[in-house]
């Protein structure tokens, strides 16, 4: 796939995600389930050109989507939509979560389209299987945390709605079930994040001769892990459940987002090249 075709295909995905976001919001505002279904379809169909563009680029540039803002953020957008589809496949009643997810996915993908799209070559330091494992688990952990955050939002929505909105909220799975599912996604994301950090440490030792240097990205990844550790600890030892746990799942996500996307932009770091180019 040429770069031109890739960009055209990617814009198709952006358009479908935008349409999906609009349909979800309209579906919620006007309480039309058909619009919500249409939003889910638009998001699902949008994943196809998105996957095709990422796959085509992978073949063309010879590496996965982990070099440069465009590749990295676009792949996180894909993981966001994938998380939504995973949740709605298990619990169709949670389709309404698209109201939160699809605008995020659209903004991420749209934002990535504004970045330079020239393919960056794999440098000697990046040529490692540990990098592949590191990146794969970063994306998986992000997907799991986004899913946990979305479930947290759904829980709070179901919990707080009164009047006519409450009738809509009652269509969701029971609160206890959403709460447990939030815990599961958060716990799995915590495992994935731990593996990501461990794989990164091993890779750093192979590439630079040190497993940890308190580089800002390393530090913020550790902070993300610690914050989620605190949230899980609070649930398992202090009995944080339900509303409090939902709030924690929502509040923790910005930290992981900052670690993955914000830190390379804010800090000067040898690590930042993956997002800002080198």
């Amino acid at each position: 796939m040429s770069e031109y075709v890739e960009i055209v295909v990617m814009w198709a995905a952006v358009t479908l995600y935008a349409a999906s976001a609009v349909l979800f919001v309209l579906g919620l505002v006007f309480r039309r389930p058909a619009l919500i279904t249409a939003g889910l379809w638009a998001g699902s169909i949008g994943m196809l050109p998105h996957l095709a563009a990422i796959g085509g680029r992978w073949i063309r540039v010879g590496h996965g989507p982990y070099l440069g803002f465009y590749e990295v953020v676009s792949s996180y957008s894909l993981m966001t939509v994938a998380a939504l589809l995973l949740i709605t496949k298990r619990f169709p009643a949670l389709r309404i979560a698209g109201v939160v997810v699809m605008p995020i996915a659209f903004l991420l993908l749209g934002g990535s389209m504004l970045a330079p799209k020239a393919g960056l070559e794999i440098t000697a330091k990046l040529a490692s299987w540990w990098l592949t494992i590191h990146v794969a688990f970063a994306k998986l952990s992000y997907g799991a945390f986004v899913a946990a955050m979305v479930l947290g939002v759904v829980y709070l929505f179901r919990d707080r709605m009164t009047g006519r909105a409450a009738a809509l909220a009652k269509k969701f799975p029971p609160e206890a079930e959403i709460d447990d599912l939030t815990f599961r996604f958060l716990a799995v994301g915590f495992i994935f994040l731990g593996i990501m950090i461990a794989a990164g440490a091993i890779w750093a030792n192979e590439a630079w001769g040190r497993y940890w240097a308190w580089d800002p990205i390393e530090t913020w990844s550790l902070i993300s892990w610690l914050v989620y550790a605190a949230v899980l600890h609070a649930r398992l030892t202090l009995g944080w459940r339900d509303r409090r746990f939902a709030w924690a799942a929502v509040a923790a996500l910005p930290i992981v987002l900052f670690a993955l996307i914000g830190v390379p932009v804010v800090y000067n770091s040898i690590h930042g090249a993956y997002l800002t180019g080198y």
Partner: protein
Amino acid sequence: MNRLMRLARSPRVAIALILGISVYTGAVTMVPQESLFPVEHAQWLVSGSPFVRPLVAFGFDRAYTNPVFLLLAAALAFSTAVCSWDRTRTSLRLWQGRGTVAPALASRLASRTPLTTILGDAQAAQDVVGEAMSSLRMRRRAGATLTYAERGAIGLFGSPLFHWALVALIVVVALGQLTRWEGLIGVTQGAATNEVASSFGKLNQGPWPAPHTGWQLVVTGVEEDMERGDVHYGVVPTVAVMSGQEVLAEAAVYPNNPLREGPLLIHLSDYGLAVRVEVLDAEGRSQGSSSRLVDFDDAASSGTRPSGFDVNDAGSKIASVSVEVPARDLDGMLPRLLPPDPVAAVSADLSDGTKVSRRLGRGEEMPLAQGWQLKVTDISYYARLSVVRDWSVPWIYALLLVATAGLVLAILVPYRAVWLRLDETADGVLVRAVAVQHRKDSYFQEALVEALKQAAGAAGVEVSETAHGEGERA
């Protein structure tokens, strides 16, 4: 002491410590760290910012050796150790008590409101309960009136394993930092350099550094444009580790392909050019030779940064010499390669006040003061190797693996056990239950009732839905 232990046991304290370390490490990322960004740190010191003085006074520019951080980490390690100990005891108690019915449990079970009533005889009820347990993937041990079923017993040890691995990880990392050393050493192509402290240009070490090996590091060859697959590695040296005449290990060293030998881990940090010079006295006798390491420098007109040294005769200076290697090509570009016919640009300030500059090829000489000569014997590459001795790394990897395994066990294999008491009455068989479950799923009770209903339905037995008790959370 008791109070300290109570504090260490407190989940709130543990969470506060975790968040305290998070806030501390997050905040200090805003301060240029001396060890991580030495250039930025030096610029920051003279930036005139009003924050510089207080932050430096409290050592926040050396944040990870700061007592505040060390204290927080030590407190977290202690709290985790106490927590691990408690978890281990609880897990062992639950493991050993699996299936047994303590008097307290028996009386609790007897007094519990029935979960459901199976409208059939005792045998039918046993079959229904057995089927329900199977559908919940719980292993059953049935008695006449009591049935015990469990799932994920191995998961009991997940949490202790994870927490002990974390404690060990903190201890091993700390001990490793005390004894590890890491340094940069320049090794000229074709020459041997001893791995001793004095050979290192830069050496960072803990307070109790492990000893140096005294082995020789030799760059036996250099490949100028190495490619593996689609990846260009550029200039790659082949490094040998030798003990006397014995070659212990030899390999091309490039990123992600370090050379490991014994306790040493050797990486390529950078490379440059080396000019080997020999100083001859007025009688033509050699007064010593050395390798001058010349680094590439985009800002320099020659493309390399000069390397300077003094030539002395019994304490009196003969000359101050500066050596560089013009490395730009005809277009003025800097390919960062050894030129095809390399020459060294040598300039010397002589003791008699005159200045001499020459371009010397291999084997060429230039005069210094008092009849002394400077001879360039070779111009080649040198490899700047990063050498690390850190015994803790394989242990850290192993502990990360154990911690991950523990976490996976704890989260993905949650322990669940249930004691069911079946009492035959005129209305049917009353089913009472007490459950122990680590994850404390709030809907486990519903799942249990649902499984009983499903199993009864499949067996053609009716279930009364009027009596519902509560499963117990442990």
